[in-house]
């Protein structure tokens, strides 16, 4: 079941959601068999930033019905630490690599993209726009104009595909996707987590150390599917669909809604090998159901 994304050949259409699988830690826990049984067809790194980050204070997790709210806060070694320590290890994975970056200004973004694009291990770059631009105060990915300015600044820096990860916490994600496409993005991915919060039992205080967090898991699947269908209708570039995908049937639904590839996030927490199971289930569905419409079909716009 091979696939193709922005000119990169993949052995299948299953990615991981950024920040939901740490291949380096998983290799410690499971050993090198992880490489033989690698659960994804393209690996997306956790989002990195220019400066190292500790992440948010614990607690960082709150379980909800069919999902969780997290306030992890993008802990990472920073650009230099990532390039020196993590990237060589990620280069050993048996699948192509996409690095996810987040900048708090356009200069930071440019620094990240230029440095990451230079490295041979990296085939694609994902731009996580779910954070405020500290210069303007707007969440980059919530505003079409802000998104356009950022992508226009980054586009000339590399010929490697740029994927814009959309936030669902926007009035009109379709408009943001159109702005990204017009500014030269090669693909869009969605959805990121939905803002959420929980109160600590028996108190009137927030449970999460950061106060609020982001909801993921099957609880968001219907919302994600609607956004993927809408965005796929409005842009010509490929979309990568995610949000609560837990079975091959879910993956098939996102492909039918117009996604060119899908990503598994929270389900990997329940089963580290979920990506492999979902791929096998999806393959059986694509084989058995002749009525299934692959993403390339023009009829997808009927959705």
């Amino acid at each position, binding site marked *: 079941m091979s696939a193709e994304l922005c000119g990169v050949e993949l052995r299948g259409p299953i990615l991981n959601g950024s*920040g*939901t*699988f*740490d291949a*380096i*830690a*998983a290799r*410690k*826990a*499971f*050993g090198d*068999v*992880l490489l033989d*049984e690698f659960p994804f067809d393209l690996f997306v790194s*956790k989002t990195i930033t220019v400066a190292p980050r*500790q*992440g948010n*204070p*614990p*607690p*960082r*997790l709150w*379980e*909800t*019905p*069919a*999902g*969780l709210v*997290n306030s*992890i806060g993008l*802990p990472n070694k920073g650009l230099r630490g990532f390039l020196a320590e993590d990237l060589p290890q990620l280069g050993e994975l048996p699948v192509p690599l996409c690095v996810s970056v987040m900048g708090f200004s356009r200069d930071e973004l440019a620094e990240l993209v230029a440095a990451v694009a230079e490295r041979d291990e990296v085939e694609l770059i994902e731009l996580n726009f779910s954070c405020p631009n500290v210069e303007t105060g707007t969440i980059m990915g919530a505003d079409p104009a802000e998104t356009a300015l950022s992508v226009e600044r980054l586009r000339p820096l590399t010929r490697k595909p740029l994927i814009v990860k959309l936030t669902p916490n926007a009035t009109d994600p379709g408009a943001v996707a159109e702005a990204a496409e017009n500014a030269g993005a090669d693909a869009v991915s969605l959805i990121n987590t939905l803002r959420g919060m929980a109160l600590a039992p028996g108190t009137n205080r927030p*449970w999460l*150390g950061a106060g609020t967090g982001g909801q993921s*898991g099957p609880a968001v699947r219907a919302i994600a599917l609607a956004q993927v269908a809408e965005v796929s209708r409005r842009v010509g570039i490929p979309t990568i669909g995610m949000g609560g995908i837990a079975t091959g049937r879910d993956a098939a639904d996102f492909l039918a809604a117009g996604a060119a590839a899908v990503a598994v996030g*929270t389900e*990997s*927490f*329940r*089963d*580290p*090998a979920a990506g*492999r199971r979902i791929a096998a289930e999806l393959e059986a569905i694509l084989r058995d159901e002749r009525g299934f419409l692959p993403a390339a079909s023009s009829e997808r716009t009927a959705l």
Partner: protein
Amino acid sequence: MNGPRTQAPFGRRMAEVTGNESVGAYRLISVLDSDGPPDPRPGQFYMLSARDCWGGGADERPYLPRAFSYARAHEDGTLQFFLEAIGPGTDRLARLEPGEGIGLVGPLGIGFDPGPAGEALLVGGGIGAAPLLCLSDELGPEARVLLGFRSAVHALGAGLFAEVQVATDDGSVGRRGFVTELLREQLDAGGRATVYACGPPPMLEAVRALCAERDVPVQLALESGMACGYGACFGCVVPTRNGYVRLCVDGPVLAGDELETAVVPGAPH
């Protein structure tokens, strides 16, 4: 800490529950884990979920798997978990019947780094006795075991151990008071020692402080809320002198001197 780590098979596997008995206020659940490694290390843990009806309990949970130290691993592949029901996940696991399916990922994390048995002091609070059971089996009768429980029905858990000193909060069994009093006496009686401890955060913090004052090496098995158990989510961090560490990959056993405090925000117990 450089504790031992037995690697887990990749992915969640299904196994059969072969027993579920009550031990006082707790459950002892047996699982035939034919596909797992025969040699997990004391202090390592497994992520568990019921195959059927995982979800739909209180608050429409559980959704994620739950972390449990293994209490004993037998040669035929049987793993035993010692469990206290405190919420929807543990409630469901406590009701598992023989023949039901259970999902496992593990063994995970790093275990205790055992030194000479003659110097070992094992200190447990409540359900924290779980990882000390396999550790005391491994170290043998020379290692001393000190356990603290809330009440007599909880203290029945001590029956799983060959030889223990018990303290209960209400004095119904053994010494009245906290297990840390038993530890203080042992430490003050002299003799070199390494302390291995597991229990609720206030107990662990008291153990850490007692050992720090006396320069006694201590290894603490901590708890924090976990989603994945294998380093994927970055949700289980605890603060250490070197910043936040993921308890599931760099713990759950940490050396006392890595910590400023053993109190973990949001820990289950």
